[in-house]
């Protein structure tokens, strides 16, 4: 089992003719993803990695019955790309692009929500279910099928943690990179019920970071609605206030969004919080051995 992606996921890559679009089309196909189309206006009739390119999302979807999109379009044009995907009836849009203005993202989020499209990202590595499908850029090599669901605001740190879980002989059901921006299409609170409902996910790993209140919101949700064990980690304990730490969303502002506040909220909701990423695989293994 998996959440949001599976063997029926048919992906269009928006911005397929760019460097990233091309590299990751290849990687997604190697993972086993059905990449059925690409879109770059003006490039219809060509192909990338054997995938046909269309001028518009409407034509790509009409020709291939695609139901998911992976967006690599540069930030100034990302809003338009997402709206086009929504209008073409795409169910799941993964936005890899970073530096999208949050005002654009507000429009994108609320428009997609009205029309029933789920967004993952922006500024995210995407989603993957080993053995089934991947939409995004998470490295193929880190995965191994298993019982752990992973949700994270980070990119590379997520790869490292997933890799650690896999190397420990465990593995993952689905890993979702939610993205490092202040406005996310899918938040921890949106992703938690999916993993809670997935029968094959036995444990949830949640990787947060400083900034905003997504982890505090998640703690509140976990306390009330999540029965599965959750292992957490928060990056950025040593970050000074007022400094944006690489991610647009990773900033302690006016005393809000500190690692301490997030850690305390999660612990009070029964989440075991690792102090360092390398502690996570052992904590996961120990927890999985415990009788439910």
């Amino acid at each position, binding site marked *: 089992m998996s959440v949001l992606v599976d063997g029926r996921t048919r992906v269009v890559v928006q911005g397929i003719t760019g460097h990233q679009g091309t590299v990751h089309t290849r990687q997604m196909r190697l993972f086993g993803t059905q990449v059925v189309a690409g879109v770059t206006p003006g490039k219809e009739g060509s192909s990338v990695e054997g995938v046909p390119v269309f001028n518009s999302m409407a034509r790509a979807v009409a020709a291939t019955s695609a139901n998911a999109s992976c967006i690599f379009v540069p930030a100034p044009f990302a809003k338009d790309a997402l709206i086009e995907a929504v209008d073409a009836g795409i169910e799941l849009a993964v936005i890899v692009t970073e530096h999208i203005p949050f005002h654009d993202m507000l429009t994108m989020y609320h428009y997609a929500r009205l029309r029933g499209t789920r967004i993952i990202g922006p500024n995210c590595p995407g989603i993957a279910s080993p053995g089934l499908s991947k939409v995004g*850029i998470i490295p193929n090599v880190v995965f191994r099928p298993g019982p752990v669901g992973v949700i994270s605001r980070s990119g590379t740190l997520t790869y490292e943690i997933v890799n650690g879980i896999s190397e420990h002989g465990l593995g993952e059901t689905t890993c979702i990179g939610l993205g490092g921006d202040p406005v996310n299409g899918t938040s921890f609170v949106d992703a938690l019920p999916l993993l809670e409902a997935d029968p094959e996910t036995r444990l949830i790993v949640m990787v947060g970071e400083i900034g905003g209140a997504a982890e505090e919101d998640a703690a509140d949700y976990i306390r009330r609605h999540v029965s599965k064990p959750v292992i957490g980690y928060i990056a*950025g304990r040593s*970050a000074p206030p007022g400094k944006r730490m690489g991610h647009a969303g990773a900033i302690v502002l006016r005393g809000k969004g500190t690692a301490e506040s997030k850690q305390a909220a999660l612990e009070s909701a029964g989440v075991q919080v690792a102090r360092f990423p390398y502690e996570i695989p052992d904590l996961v293994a120990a927890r999985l051995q415990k009788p439910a």
Partner: protein
Amino acid sequence: MVKLAEWRGKEVFHKYGIALPRGTVVRSPEEAEAAAQSGKVPLPCVIKAQVLAGGRGKGGAVRFAATPTEAREAARAILGMEFKGEKVRELILEEKLAIGRELYVSLTLDRSLRLPILMVSPHGGVEIESVDPSSIDRQPIHPFVGLAAYERRRAAEFLGLSGPLAKSLEPVLNALWEIFQKEDAELVEINPLAVVGDRVVALDAKVIIEDDAAFRHPEYSEVRDDRTPLEEIAREKEIAFVQLDGNIGVIANGAGLTMATLDVLQEYGGRPGVFLDLGGTDDPKKVAEAFLLMARAAPKAVFLNVFGGVTRCDTVANGLVEAMRQVPPNEKFPLVARIRGNNEAEGVAILRTAGITSLPDLRDAGRAVVEAARGGRP
């Protein structure tokens, strides 16, 4: 974050029709005197340092003057100041109004709701964080609808305004919303918004423009921010680079991994001095640029922590060896590396040949770099 100084924020306010005290910007004591003399700024007047840090009133960076001579001397005193590390280069000189109540209004983003939020409080003139939450009214505003009339009425009522005062609040709230959207603001704040007779006047202006929207706002490109000179260079090169107050540099790929690496250093008693996120790049030119930038920050030791996913560790290692060669001899620093992931063995071998230690375990690597920063060998 492009934080506009008060005078620049007030220019934006003026453009959108928010009522302001009569005033001007000056850059010398003589200009201050002339502005007061000519009646351009009515007396008595207030003189305020144009710095981004708060607490100007308590810190002596705001003064009053009743005559042109007093204005000149007040300007001289403030222009000589360094306020919380910022050199004062500009002053606002503006009329001192007979103020009634001081209110607070702002528009910002509520990340959890994914909606803009209008915040108003009858307790203005103090930092909003110190105001009891029950005295702050928060209204989410839907971006597809904008500020509705009933929301403006509710804000006026919460602020205790009625009649002509409530009427004068309306255009202020509309302007806030317009500025928030059209100028791509993260924050538009008026604190205090003062009651002066039968209208409200913005005594201060705080406007923060979103960095990621800079491409459509060339008008703010010259705004000096509170970035350090090296942070400024990094920004131009599109490298995520943050200077901290310690002495160990960290280069990693990905913001989360970079932050986690800083946390590990701190755990072992090290003090992180530079956060440098390479992002998704393994372009040797970009890696070299990052190293040269790091060298200029003069770290005692540097920790490179890279996880190769799609990127291969051997590519990263080759780029790294080349980059270290380009660092000028007098700027060399001890380097501890940890490269993991795709083609790890090949990458580690390349580093070993070049005399660079690579430790697979984050704990060992963290301890080694803290030791190196204390003068031990890495």
